């Protein structure tokens, strides 16, 4: 059985050039040997810290960057082999949403123009029905009809992200790469956008590659999670499994380090010391070894392969060992909070009717 989107051994190296002749003196191994599947209506989350190669994975698989190696197939069609013309057609199926919708929206185009463009380009609307199709898109994404005539700068961050989503949705894509789509938003707005993305997925069966540094958001979005460290997947597992039994020490430290909103559970004790190493000069063996409390001699010399462990894939020599990084259990949400929220939500329901 083949998945809707199959990414195999995706690799992207950037040359480092120095001197007046701009000679290539080395390369940054931004993405190395990354493989994963995304099924219809499924979300694969890619998580990791800044500079780990998350965004490069997303851009390379869309061919916005030329890969150094590897293959991508959508519904069995090898994307990397397509001619430029065929790729233009393929773009319809593979869209992207960015963290900063402002940077990706043309400031001189109204929302209606922004949304009409892909519809007309791909022949999904005619001059006669384009206005109606734009109106439908706005409604689907929780915007008002009068937003059509507005410019990006007139919108709040959350509204702009809705426009970004509407534009990606316009061509009825099979897959959307969401690159930190809620990271710039306030929590109350973030929750609105997360819910919108999930609703759209349920409605249209879109597959998401959801790139994020926030493991709490990912828990709400993902079907499966791939944790990336210095350009490689170090762990990949179904979402419940990843959070219930994280096996890689790096995954464990990411979960442990997230500050819990519960003052009775003061969990912030830095789980690992040291900085992220530079991708230009990655550590030998296991890239995580300089920060890993479990590291042994073997880790410094031999890179652990990503191997199957139950439903998970893990790249750690000692993945079966007793974990040493505590990840902190469930935190408490007060009864008062739950009860008052229920009161507010009931009142909101009543307002609607």
């Amino acid at each position, binding site marked *: 059985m083949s998945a809707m989107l199959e990414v195999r051994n995706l690799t992207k190296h950037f040359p480092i050039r120095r001197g007046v002749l701009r000679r290539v003196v080395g390369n940054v191994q931004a993405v190395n040997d990354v493989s994963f599947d995304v099924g219809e209506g499924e979300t694969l989350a890619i998580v990791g*810290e*800044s500079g780990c190669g998350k965004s490069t994975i997303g851009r390379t698989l869309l061919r916005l960057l030329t890969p150094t190696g590897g293959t991508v197939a959508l519904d069995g069609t090898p994307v990397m082999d397509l001619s430029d013309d065929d790729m233009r057609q393929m773009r319809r199926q593979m869209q992207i949403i960015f963290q900063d919708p402002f940077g990706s929206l043309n400031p001189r185009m109204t929302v209606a123009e922004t949304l009409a463009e892909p519809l007309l380009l791909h022949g999904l609307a005619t001059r006669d029905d384009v206005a109606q199709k734009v109106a439908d898109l706005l409604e689907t994404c929780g915007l008002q009809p009068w937003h059509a005539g507005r410019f990006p700068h007139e919108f*709040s961050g*959350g509204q702009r992200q809705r426009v970004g989503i509407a534009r990606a949705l316009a061509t009825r894509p099979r897959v959307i790469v969401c690159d930190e789509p809620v990271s710039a938003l*306030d*929590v*109350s*707005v*973030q*929750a*609105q956008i*997360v*819910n919108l993305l*999930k609703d759209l997925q349920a409605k249209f069966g879109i597959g998401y590659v959801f790139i994020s*540094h926030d*493991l*709490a958001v990912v*828990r*709400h979005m993902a079907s499966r999670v791939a944790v990336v460290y210095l350009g490689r997947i170090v762990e990949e597992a179904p*979402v419940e499994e990843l*959070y219930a039994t994280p096996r890689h020490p790096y995954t464990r*430290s*990411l*979960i*442990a*380090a*997230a*500050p*819990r*909103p*519960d*003052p*009775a*559970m*003061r*969990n*912030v*004790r*830095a*789980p*690992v010391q040291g*900085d*992220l190493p530079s991708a230009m000069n990655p550590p030998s063996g296991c890239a995580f070894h300089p920060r890993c409390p479990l590291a042994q001699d073997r880790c410094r010399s031999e890179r652990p392969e990503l191997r199957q462990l139950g439903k998970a894939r893990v790249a750690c020599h000692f993945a079966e060992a007793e974990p040493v990084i505590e990840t*902190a*259990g*469930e*935190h408490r*949400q*007060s009864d*008062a*909070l739950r*009860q*008052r*929220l229920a*009161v*507010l*939500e009931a*009142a*909101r329901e009543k*307002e609607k009717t």
Partner: protein
Amino acid sequence: MEQREAPLLDVRDLAVEFHVGGTVQRAVQGVSLSLNRGRTLGVVGESGCGKSVTSLSIMRLVPQPPGKYAGGQILFDGQDLLTLSESEMRKLRGGRIGMIFQEPMTSLNPVYTCGHQIEESLSVHSGLSKKAARERAIEMLDLVGLPSPKSRVDDYPHQLSGGQRQRVMIALALANDPDLLIADEPTTALDVTIQAQILDLMGELRSRTGAAVMLVTHDLGVVAQTCDDVVVMYAGRVVERAPTADLFADPQHPYTVGLMAAVPRIDTAVGRLATIPGTVPPPWSKIAGCRFASRCPLASEQCRTQDPPLRDLSPGHGVACWHAPIEVAA
């Protein structure tokens, strides 16, 4: 709560406006908060709610124009900072009041070495000799956990990683043993494993130096982990104030409740995330009543016409809402 001791910082009814393009934006309106020695106060709220304007005001760094202090007092150790001359303020900044910002490059000067900047501050504020200042600078860099401080003291800021720069900024802020440390989103730009290291460090230094800390953040997790007391801001107002444990155990204001419920949980799977429908009113809008009324399902006629004052529901726990405490079915 012990309230006998006079607070180190006592902000009373602060109002700050920005005059832009013919409109007046009331960025901060009637904000009051106080902070005792040795305590950490969290100021939490969403983008644009006035957190940074409040902290910049305490340091008197709101740009004027377009900014304008439109009312209130900022009492620091009994003295109103809003009445001091610029040169008196300059003595306080980096001296008795230390500051840390989200982006270290805004307060670290890229053309000087890290050591030079700390030494300079030590000689200006504490009158240390060149030699003593250098020794102390190295000591501070060591204290904040910068690896090999003796050589890194001569590094320029751009030679350091984001986490290391944040450590240098903390060293700079604490070099002169400040009584008050103002930290505006000190870990927001950092990766989560580095954030944990920096929060660890700040906690350790706070208990060591006894400085009072005002921590501005949008992250309720960070508040829960680090603060003794919290002020929740919405659209330029304080809407709730409480000891941290009280706020999380018994959130009162509809906005606080909504905000807490919207935080996605890492520890357990839940269904749909709770949201607060709508958006914050734009800063130039004139609102007679409660600023949360447009998003609040409990809003009544009174809410729309009269601004709710902050009043104590229990000792130390203040709420600015006409309908608090919210009645829940038993």
